[in-house]
């Protein structure tokens, strides 16, 4: 009787072992094959050269050299501006009229009374720039998120409400003629602007800076700016000297651009048809 039971329970144990064995084999094989395909085989197809390590890194979302962009989570946020309902409502209530008086006294000497800069190489044109973009930059000058020896002391004389009024005033001015794309721009620059370079993780410039922008609120209009100003900013993002872009968007993108591409894009956006290559 007892031997019979022993027999049965040892049979059970053998059966359990069998289940454990085959279940482990099946699950293990499935996982290993899926990981091989997902981490190596598929990403390798997009790699220009045979580079398994690069493929794995891309598949788990990091760069091959292990670098990530610039900032630690303990750092302060890139900007203190948030696009909350409060910010938007306040911007809606801004007054271009009172902005106009402030501009005459404070901004006109460099940026021009109607936002057409006296020296576009140095001082950006503000006419027709979006209200959000101007507001965000002024706030960032005030808080030091964007560093400038010239703009910081000037911006700091404004209250937050005055900042909004100024932004509303410039936004209402007629933009400097937006000439459109330069006929001299090379095909790859046009493609970068319109389509981006997905393989390098670069979205198109248009997706945020285009006419029907669906991107972040603060993304400025680029047409109508001077090429050298744009190129200067791209370089500053690339070196992380300028770091007030939320979520390090521009730092991430510019890090991927070559100096020639920055130059080309700056001309594409900046000088339009008037560009002399």
């Amino acid at each position: 009787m007892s031997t019979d039971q022993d027999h049965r329970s040892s049979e059970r144990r053998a059966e359990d072992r069998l289940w454990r064995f085959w279940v482990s084999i099946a699950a293990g094989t499935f996982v290993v094959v899926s990981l091989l395909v997902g981490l190596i085989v598929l990403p390798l197809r997009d790699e220009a050269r045979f580079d398994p390590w690069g493929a794995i890194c891309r598949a788990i979302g990091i760069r091959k050299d292990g670098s990530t962009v610039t900032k630690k989570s303990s750092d302060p946020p890139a900007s203190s501006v948030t696009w909350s309902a409060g910010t938007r409502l306040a911007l809606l209530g801004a007054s271009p009229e009172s902005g106009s008086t402030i501009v005459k006294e404070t901004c006109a000497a460099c940026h021009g009374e109607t936002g057409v800069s006296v020296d576009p190489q140095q001082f950006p044109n503000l006419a027709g720039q979006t209200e959000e973009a101007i507001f965000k930059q002024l706030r960032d000058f005030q808080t030091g998120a964007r560093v400038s020896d010239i703009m910081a002391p000037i911006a700091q004389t404004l209250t937050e409400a005055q900042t909004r009024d100024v932004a509303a005033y410039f936004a209402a001015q007629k933009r400097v003629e937006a000439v459109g794309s330069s006929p001299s721009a090379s095909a790859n620059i046009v493609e970068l602007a319109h389509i981006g370079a997905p393989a390098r993780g670069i979205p198109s410039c248009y997706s945020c800076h285009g006419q029907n922008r669906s991107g972040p609120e603060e993304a400025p209009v680029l047409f109508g700016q001077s090429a050298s100003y744009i190129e200067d900013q791209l370089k500053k993002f690339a070196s992380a000297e300028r770091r007030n872009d939320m979520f390090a968007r521009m730092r991430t993108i510019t890090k991927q651009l070559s100096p020639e591409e920055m130059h080309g894009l700056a001309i594409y956006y900046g000088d339009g048809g008037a560009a002399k290559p």
Partner: protein
Amino acid sequence: MPAERQAVNYRVKNLILAHIGVSFATLAAAAVLGAWQMTVRTGVNPPFATPETYFASVSAHGTIMGYVMPTLFTMGFGYFVAVTALDQPLPSMRLAWAGFWLAAVGIVAAIIPIVMGKATVLYTFYPPLTGSVFYYLGVLLVVVGSWFWVALMIWAMAHWKRNNPGRPVPLAMFGTVANAFLWLWTTGGVAVEIIFQLIPASLGWTQMIDVGLARTLFAWTLHPIVYFWLLPAYIAFYTIAPQAAGARLYSDLMGRLSFILLLLFSLPVGMHHLFMDPEHGTGFKFLQAMLTALVVLPTFLTVFTISASMEIAGRLRGGKGLFGWIAALPWDRPMVLATCLSFVLLGFGGFGGVVNMAYAMNAMIHNTSWVTAHFHLIFGGAVVIMYFAITYWIWPILLEREAADVRPLRLQLWLWFIGIVIMTFPWHVLGLLGQPRRIATFDYANPVIAQWQPWVFVSMFGGYLMLVSALLFVWNIATLYRARPVGDNRMHYAVAVYPPARVPNALNGFALWNWLLLFLMVVAYGYPLGQFFLMDVYPGLVHRVDIGS
């Protein structure tokens, strides 16, 4: 076969009635909100329509339909199965009632802030949006209450196995405990998110919140929760529907396998909700997509087994030929009708699900009305229609009364079916046309979207049919209280064609499967979650909706 006929006693009646009663009371309220939301979306501006009220309403509707209604139903049905299938009292009535009251307090705590407009964060509460802390605490209480149920189900099965060594656990209970384990695993992600991210943020203890981490933790929960909702329906397919059709279950083993596979393949797959998210690379998305695809195994097993069981029933009733058995089925019985309607809805919904699951096609319908249409079809349709049918089956047993006329029951089920089809088919189309979900107002005067409006109207009509059906359901249950007493409270589960005398340990418990699941979860989520602690992260600024007033 003593497991065949059991009486509901052991003083659990009120416990079950309380759970399922509250579940359907909230469903009725949420159905009213749903119909109102549909009306708002047509652009006709019903009373009270503002964006604020719309999002408050969707938050309440989603919270109830997603967390409250199915959880309480599953708990109630689980208690029912535990006493009837095992023929033993619950291990602890006190614990069961404690779980119920925790959940009940949680429901009230969660709904009040929504009504006050302080927690219009929608049931997915994606940060950086945060609402009143009471909302999160309320949801957490519902979850904690349900953990009491989990403990009781596992305990009850362990107790039974000790007293019945070597005997197979009855299939209904096996499925219920599979669901209990599934729920325990499922709630892990959202509980961590609520406790460590959302509550500190909503209290103002933290100003920054890691949105990627929060989304990943939520995705952990978001997929398996669907299977938690679904499993009671599956339990009914296997253990009640064949009985209702007057036959036997084709295979007990298939049922066990299906429940185990559902447990395994519902959990390590949630990242398919993050296909379009930037915080993860493609590698682990691919692994989880592969694991997602494995859900076809239990699905096909079930479709096959239940169809075979129904065929047996049809042939026993004299059905002949290739399809004659279908006509011979007892369609007048609500459970049989609901099972068939549910299968049809599952078929439609499964088609949409394959589209969602495909990495490339997902991009096309991501965040459009397609998604809302899909889960209403699967969950609101295929699953909830089985909740109705289960209730029609067990409520009379609990009351020891019998409905004199089942026509209103069948009418209710048909209305629900037709309503969901009319509601969700145009909704899918709208998704393909690009209509975003979770939008309060549409300006149909804009020619770009004017063509949407007729579809929205048709869809709204379906929504009202569903509302009528939900109210008819409440009515049907209410009238049961005055129906003829029958003095019979025995529950009959379907018996398998070949009832197993013994089954391997692996198919009679969950130890092996929980270990395997642990392995799969570590592989699937280890790096995707770990990366947030390894590399530089960019938390978002917390955005509070309940500031002021």
